[in-house]
Structure formats: C-alpha cells, structure tokens
C-alpha cells in the first residue's frame, strides 16, 4: 500500500512539475493529464479504503475546488491570477470549515485572508509587475525543489492517513464541539486562558516584524547630491 501511495504521489509531483509555468504549452498539458490521472487514482483508492465515503457531498465539492485552486495558484503564469486562485482556495477552505461548524474561523479566514492580505497582494502585484514577472521572480520559483518538498510533505501526511485508515486502529471521528453557537467562545476562551502566553509572544513577534519592515522601507532623507551620486 505505501508503495502505491508513494507511486501516485510521485506521479503527482512529476505532473505538477511539468505543469509549472515557464515550460512549453504541450508539456504543461501533459503535466495536467498526469496530475488528473494521479488524482483519479488517489480518489479511487480513498473511496476503496473508506467504505462509507460519499464523494457527492459538499465536502467533496469544496475539497476538489480547493485542490484545483491550490494547483492553479502555483501553476498559473500570471501573478494576479495566482492571487485570485488563492482567494478561490480560501473560499473552498471556508466552505470546509463551515461544514465542520467552525463558523468563526471560516469568517475570520475570509476577512483576514481574502479581505485584507490578498487585497494587499493584488495591490502589490499590480504595482510591481505590469508587463511580465521580473527575472528574479521567475528564477526564485524553483519548481524542482518546490515539487520535491511538497511531495515529501504529502508522503508524510499520507503515511499518517494510512495509519489512520487501518481498521484496527480506526478511532471514531471527533464529534463536533457540542454547542455549535459557542464556537466563538470555543475559540476565544482558550486563546485568552490556555494560550495567552503564546498569543502574547506571537503578538510581540509580529510587532517586531512590523517595526523591522518599517525600518527597512523607510525612505531616508537624502540630499540631492547624495541621490545623484547613487545613480
């Protein structure tokens, strides 16, 4: 079984690599075919392993959209489209979270990611690269290493899933948290009691990052002579 999974994931990794932007159009098409094949096999495998699974549910829909959008984020040539697919991905994940009754988390995801962070991304992308990606952007994509890392991560995850799926060790799915309307409480109370130190440390880190960013980005007042000398 692990061999089969590893084979499928390797296939997926190869397909993804082929589908990465920068290659020739037909190579990329081949990559997509490979990816689709790997996905189909994986789906079939999962369906066989989990007898009661219903692939027609909302979960499957959201999950498929999420996977597709995630792939497009990294395979699309234009940064703006990548960002838009990212937003689509976030919506799919939001759907998944809503299915898990984690409404607060889902809304927070939309507000923070789609509403703020990605708008900033789009903003920056629009400002930065009007015609085509800069050479350093193209270079830094490093499709080989990216695919390899993702592939390793997926192997580890699959290993876990496989362990989880072995019937002897199967544990019942954790039930949704009892009082559904209290999800805000369910998130908020632990944040301010159990994890309060962690939260503070994270806050501190973010503050440090913010200050650092400002320090880097600050325009230093230069005299004219200096600025001319720089050029």
């Amino acid at each position, binding site marked *: 079984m692990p061999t089969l999974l590893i084979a499928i994931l390797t296939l997926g990794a190869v397909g993804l690599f082929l589908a990465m932007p920068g290659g020739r159009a037909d190579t990329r098409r081949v990559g997509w075919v490979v990816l689709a094949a790997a996905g189909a096999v994986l789906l079939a495998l999962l369906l066989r392993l989990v007898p009661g699974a219903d692939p027609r549910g909302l979960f499957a829909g959201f999950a498929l959209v999420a996977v597709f959008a995630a792939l497009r984020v990294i395979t699309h040539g234009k940064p703006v489209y990548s960002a838009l697919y990212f*937003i689509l991905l976030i919506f799919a994940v939001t759907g998944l979270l809503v299915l898990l009754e984690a409404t607060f988390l889902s809304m927070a995801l939309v507000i923070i990611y*789609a*509403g703020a962070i990605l*708008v*900033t991304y*789009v*903003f920056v992308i*629009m400002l930065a690269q009007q015609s085509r990606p800069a050479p350093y952007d193209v270079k830094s994509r490093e499709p080989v290493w990216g695919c390899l890392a993702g592939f390793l991560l997926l192997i580890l995850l699959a290993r876990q899933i496989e362990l989880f799926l072995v019937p002897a060790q199967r544990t019942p799915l954790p039930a949704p948290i009892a009082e559904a309307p209290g999800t*805000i409480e369910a998130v908020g109370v632990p944040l301010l009691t159990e994890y309060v130190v962690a939260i503070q440390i994270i806050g501190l880190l973010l503050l440090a990052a913010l200050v650092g960013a400002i320090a880097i980005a600050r325009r230093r007042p230069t005299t004219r002579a200096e600025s001319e000398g720089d050029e």
Partner: protein
Amino acid sequence: MTDPTIKRIETVLRKPAVIFGAGAAILLLVTALLALAFPLYKPLLSSQFSFSMIVLAVMLVLILSATALCILFERKIAGFTQDRYGPNRVGFWGLLQPVADGLKFLLKEDIIPRHVDKPLFLLAPALALAASLLGFAIIPWAGQVRWPWMPPDAPPLSTQVANLNVGFLYLLAVGSLSVYGVVLAGYASNNKYAFYGGMRAAAQMISYELPLGLGLLVVLLVSGTLQLDQIVQQQAATGVWNIFLHPIAFFLVLVSALAEANRAPFDLPEAEQELVGGYHTEYSAMKFAMFFLGEYAHMITSSALIVALFFGGWHFWGLPGPENVTWWAMLIKLAVYLTKVALFIALFMLVRWTLPRFRFDQLMRVAWQSLVPIGVALLAATAALTYLGWQRNVWASLAANLLLLAVLLRSAARSKRPVTARQEDLPEIDVRPTT
C-alpha cells in the same frame, strides 16, 4: 422631428393618474395572483428553510428594483439640492426613468476593448454586484413571525435568510470582498485611469475596514452577540437603541460605510474629474450598469446594517415589539425597517451632493490618524464599561462618549492643523524671483 406617436405616449405617461393607476392595477394583480396561489405555497411558508428561500427571492427582486429606483432618487436629490427638478420627463415625476435607464443600458453596445485581460474584465462587474448582494442574507428584515395556521407552540419563523451565529462578521467578510470587483476592473482594463482607480480602491477599502471593525466591536461588546436579530431584539426589548449608547461608534461606522461603498466624499476610485471614470472607464452597457447596481446595492446593505446595529432595526416605540409575532406585525416591522433604510440612503445621497471629495492623502489621514485612534479609545472605554457591567447603561455610555468627545475637541484645539491638512512633506516653494 419627433414622432408624434412617441410624443403622445410621453404625454399620456406623464399623467399621474396613469402611472398610479397602472401601479395600483399591477399591485392588485400581483396580490390577487398571490391570493389565488396561496394553497400552492402555503406549506412552503411553514418551514424555516423554504420560508428563508422565499424571503431571499422576494428581497432580491425588491432590492434590485430598489437599486434602479435609487438611481432615480439620487438624481432627484441631486437636482433638488441644485435647485433643479431632476428627471421629470419619463412618466409622472420621472417615475419611469429607471425603466428608460435600464433599457438604455441593455440596448447599448457592449464594448470589450481589445487590450483588456478578458476573463478578469468579464469577472469584475459580476464580482462587484455579487459581493454587494451577498450581504442581504443576514439582514433581519422583520423579526419573527408565526403564521396563523401554525400551532401556537411552534417556534416562530425568522425573516432572516440565514441566521448565522457569526452574524455581522459575515457582513464584514463579504463587504471586504467587494473591493475585488473594483480592483480587478482596474487591473483588467489595462488603462491607466482605471488602474489608478483600482489602486485607490484597494488602499481605501483596506484602510476603512479597520474603523468599521472597531465600531462594530463596540456594538459587539454592548450586546454580547454577533447575531443581528438578537442585537435588534435587545434594542427592541429595552427600547434603547445603540445610537443612544454610542453615538461616536455610530459615526465611525457611518463614515467607514460611506468609504467602503465608494460613495462621496470617498469616491476617489471613480473620481470623474481626475480619473475620467476610474475603474469603470472602459466599461459600457450592462457591465457598467452592474457596477452601478453594485454600488447602490452596497449602499442599501450598509444602510440596513447600520439600522440593525444602531437604530433598532424594525423597532419603533409604540409599534409591535418582539413578542408580537403575528403576520401583520411582521408587515409593520418590515415597513419600519425599510423606512429607516430609505432614510439612510437619503442621508448618503445628501452627503454626496453636499461634501466635496477628499484628496487621497487626506482620506488616508482621516482613516489612520483619526478614525482608528478614536475607535481604539472607544473600544477600550466600552470594554471597561462591560467589565463593570454597565454596558447597556445609557448614562454611563453617554458619559464615556462625551468624555471622548471632549478629549477629541481638546486635541483638535491643540493641534496646529486641521485633521485634513495639506501635505507637510511637500517642499517649501519660494515664490520670490531668483534675481
């Protein structure tokens, strides 16, 4: 040179009796049809899900036609404030102007310039309209209702489409999405004016989401819930609208809502005088109309939200309260709610024709240097009140607000410049001749 038949039709349509008669006839017809079809949809009214769907359908139609009417309304107000009549040619009092406008939009040539990013160009107006319409899902239009044929012990039905437990967080989330329509329109148009419009919209919306969120948080602290229907019910039960508790929070939300809807004086993304048409420069026909509709739909959502949060939603003193869940009470509540929303829309329009547009640095300064600090201070004060358990105490809240106002006045008096000063980092210009 005009066709005499057209002229005759115009004259006929301009008679009030014709317009109102036709309106009444249509209303009667619809009512009669509804009454006749009552057995068909009676079961649908009884379950929450199907009832929500019906509310959804009805409100969608209502709001889309309301946006069209809003445009007439806006032009009328523009005319009135400028000592004009506004549109008064099509139909009595110009009432058929939306029909004419709609026809014009539909019949105009739909131009897609060759240089645009086509998928995004097509997507943008759809996004703009859809994001604005999404918000209506959680507006508690008329409280709760229990139909006469339902057993008295059955739980009453909610007139909300969806009673999310995250409440107005959802509104905040979908509101933040409306920026994409504008930004993508600006990007896809491949036109510098559109592009500037898009950039401005992005920066503006991100900036004004903060004060909006802070204002909403104040309400959250006061009411202890995110669900709009509960917030309204609280206000209705106590008879104290949140505006009385936190006028400054209301002001924050109002200003931010104006900015989020790209309304004047925050309409920089489409500033005609500077950017031709801003993000919709390249759009024509129905796609242009969709931006238009989106803007007005956004305005209606914002008004509905403000009414629910600060003005007691469907509540009005002396009218049926939350305990009255009969169908006629529902209609009264709906009417009250819609009236309040209409008043707010009128306020938005009045503001548009009163205030000049901000400059962009002023816009940013207002958000980051005024509204956000005020919001934070107000939030802290409300948190303190909540901690003391006085969050719904009118006098304590008002005192806190007044205190804040006094501090603001004092700092304004101390500061050497108005809130929206000219840019200081511009170099000093020596006007004297060099010789």
